């Protein structure tokens, strides 16, 4: 019988290198592929996800493992989908998470299709999360290492794609992964763990937006919740919910962004006690098991990648939408971010936050 061919998305970092090494050890026929992502013209070599150094590193790892390695150009696709969604999101006063789009459309889209064209039937990455097959469905679980868990950014993957996916390093802690790298004689060098977006090259997203769209830079009023005008904002795209610094207000108490009202181009600020909501409405729902478990259930949710788990009641409204009633007030529920629902270790599904409010 022919060996199963697995394509591994490589980054040159320790996690995907170990993923590739483990698959080789498990007897798969492995192909390493690295994506070339988009950067602003003139900044081509500074995309954190694919610097020339990282590419050389990945190529060396592939050579050491004796697997073929290819660099796939995804610059146009990345720009047209991920960067455009990012710009459009901010232009509609949302705070998008481009990494989720990248996973859904570039890694598990463009890259996975290419891997299949090369003859691969499985696709692997160095993400920290686990997969379990139960009754023909593949479920997504939190990583063994809680500190490294990346199940949040994989929650957008549909069932068909999860079934073709292997996540070798999710079964190990970061320390164990480093030990495995050592055992294989692989470099344990890694990218600086960073919340920065790869295509911003470490620079501020606000300047990026100014260069790429005119919509976010439309100044408008800053009001408090009573409707009193306190000042002027530079454009809603420059602010996030919960932000305190850089508002340019001279008030006696610290003020926080509590709402971005796009239709009025209005930035609403308030004092600390006004910040926080205990209800959110999400749309673009996806369910790992294709359907929600029940119309209404209790669960823990994450309202952004690095948020802590918050308990609440999920109420499924229709195919596309659900609402979450939190047990406690959450301070930074941000429209545009993904809310991901967990049942213990298991990812249940998720949706994109549309709005939030305080039910009191």
């Amino acid at each position, binding site marked *: 019988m022919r060996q199963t061919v697995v394509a591994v998305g490589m980054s040159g970092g320790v996690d995907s290198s170990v993923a590739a090494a483990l698959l080789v050890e498990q007897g798969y026929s492995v192909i390493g592929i690295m994506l070339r992502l988009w950067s602003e013209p003139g900044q081509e070599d500074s995309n954190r996800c694919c610097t020339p150094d990282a*590419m050389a590193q990945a190529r060396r790892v592939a050579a050491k493992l004796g697997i*073929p390695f*290819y660099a*796939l*150009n995804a*610059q146009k696709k990345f720009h047209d989908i991920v960067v455009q969604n990012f710009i459009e999101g901010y232009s509609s006063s949302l705070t998008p998470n481009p990494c989720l789009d990248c996973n859904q459309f570039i890694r598990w889209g463009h890259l996975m299709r290419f891997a299949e*064209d090369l*003859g691969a039937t499985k696709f692997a990455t160095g993400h920290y999360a686990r997969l379990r097959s139960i009754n023909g469905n593949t479920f997504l679980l939190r990583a063994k290492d809680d500190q490294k868990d990346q199940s949040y950014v994989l929650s957008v993957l549909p069932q068909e794609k999860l079934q073709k996916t292997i996540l070798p390093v999710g079964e190990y802690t970061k320390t164990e992964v480093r030990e495995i790298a050592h055992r294989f004689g692989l470099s344990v060098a890694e990218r600086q763990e960073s919340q920065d977006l790869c295509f911003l090259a470490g620079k501020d997203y606000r300047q990026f937006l100014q260069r790429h769209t005119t919509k976010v830079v439309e100044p408008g009023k800053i009001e408090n919740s009573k409707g009193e005008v306190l000042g002027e904002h530079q454009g809603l795209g420059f602010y996030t919910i919960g932000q305190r610094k850089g508002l340019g207000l001279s008030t006696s108490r610290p003020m926080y962004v509590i709402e971005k009202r796009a239709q009025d181009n209005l930035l609403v600020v308030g004092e600390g006690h006004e910040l926080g909501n205990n209800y959110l409405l999400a749309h673009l729902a996806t369910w790992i098991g294709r359907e929600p478990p029940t119309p209404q259930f209790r669960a823990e949710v994450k309202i952004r990648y690095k948020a802590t788990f918050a308990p609440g009641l999920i109420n499924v409204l229709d195919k596309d939408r659900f609402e979450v009633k939190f047990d406690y007030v959450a301070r930074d529920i941000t429209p545009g971010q993904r809310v991901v629902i967990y049942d213990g270790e298991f990812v249940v599904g998720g949706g994109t936050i549309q709005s939030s409010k305080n039910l009191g």
Partner: protein
Amino acid sequence: MIGDRIYLDYAATTPVDEQVMAKMTPYFRDYFGNPSSSHFYGQKAETAVEDAREIVARCLGSSESEIVFTSGGSESDNLAIRGVGLAKLEKKGANRILTTPVEHHAVLHTVIQLAQYFGFMIEFLPVDSTGMVDLDDLRAFLRDDVALVSIIYANNEIGTVNPIEEIGKLCRERNIPFHTDAVQAAAHLSMISVSTYADLVSIGAHKFYGPKGVGALFIKNGVELIPVQTGGGQEFGYRAGTQNTPYIVGLAAALTLTQSDIQKRATQSQYLRDRIINGVLADVPKSRLTGHPHIRLPNHASFAFKNVDGNKLLMMLDSAGYACSSGSACKVGDPKPSDVLEAIGLSPAWAFGSLRVTVGVHTTVDEVDRFLKTLPELVQKARAAG
């Protein structure tokens, strides 16, 4: 693994011939001396280098004093262009370099550097849609302030062979040094009379079953040239550095093997080449041949496929076990259409989808047929993948 694979990239490089290997081997350990040393060891090595020079000279129809060994085709190109350019600038003030837009980068980038740092003017001769230079154009461009003409003998990407003999004669009439990059040509065309019409000829051993890292430059007696690499005065002072004896022996052995068998080899490769060209054009929709339909290297087939990512196609071919090349080949995922494909007027829709298939002495009809059977489906996939 390697047994299942089919190598169709002989224009990139070739495996070293076994007879060549055998000739090289003693010079690594038994006769390892420095050719410049006066003792026994040195004399053995010197003899080998000078024998090699004699063999190469015979293959190029030149005298031994006209052959300089280098580290390869690129160095030969650099030495010819920079060396003659700088000599001319000093002596005569001629500062124009006449070349074509379809040169190998070893020529193009050297010429560009001369323009950037030494005040040279570059003039690009027009080429037609097959990448060939027109003699009437050349006549119009040849003026007294031209320091050097450099025109590729046979194009590495699209296979087209230029009328080098006629070009050389025109240059000689005007007494302007003429360099040709014959790195591809020397593997497939007879070089016996090249010295009668060219003043500088670059070759590299690994294109004709010799080792990588060794080449030669023919420099016609009387052509003035300033050395690029200075030092101990080896190679008539044109190229300093202890000669790489085993590799120079290998170059000579490989060149003489190839050149003495050139007609037979050409006939065999041409059969395979034409089988590839006919098969691909018949079975792959929206495909075309790049380069000249018949005035081309006998082992060289090159294509463009509309709306295909050539880079992706190469990777798919590699995964299926076929090693080919592309004009936009890129190992870091940032492909650009090559200068050559742009120069012959291919639009981006075609230029990104280039494929080069080159055969060699080990290529079989069966291998070609397996390739032809696989390719159409992969092109279709690469097209759909977008």
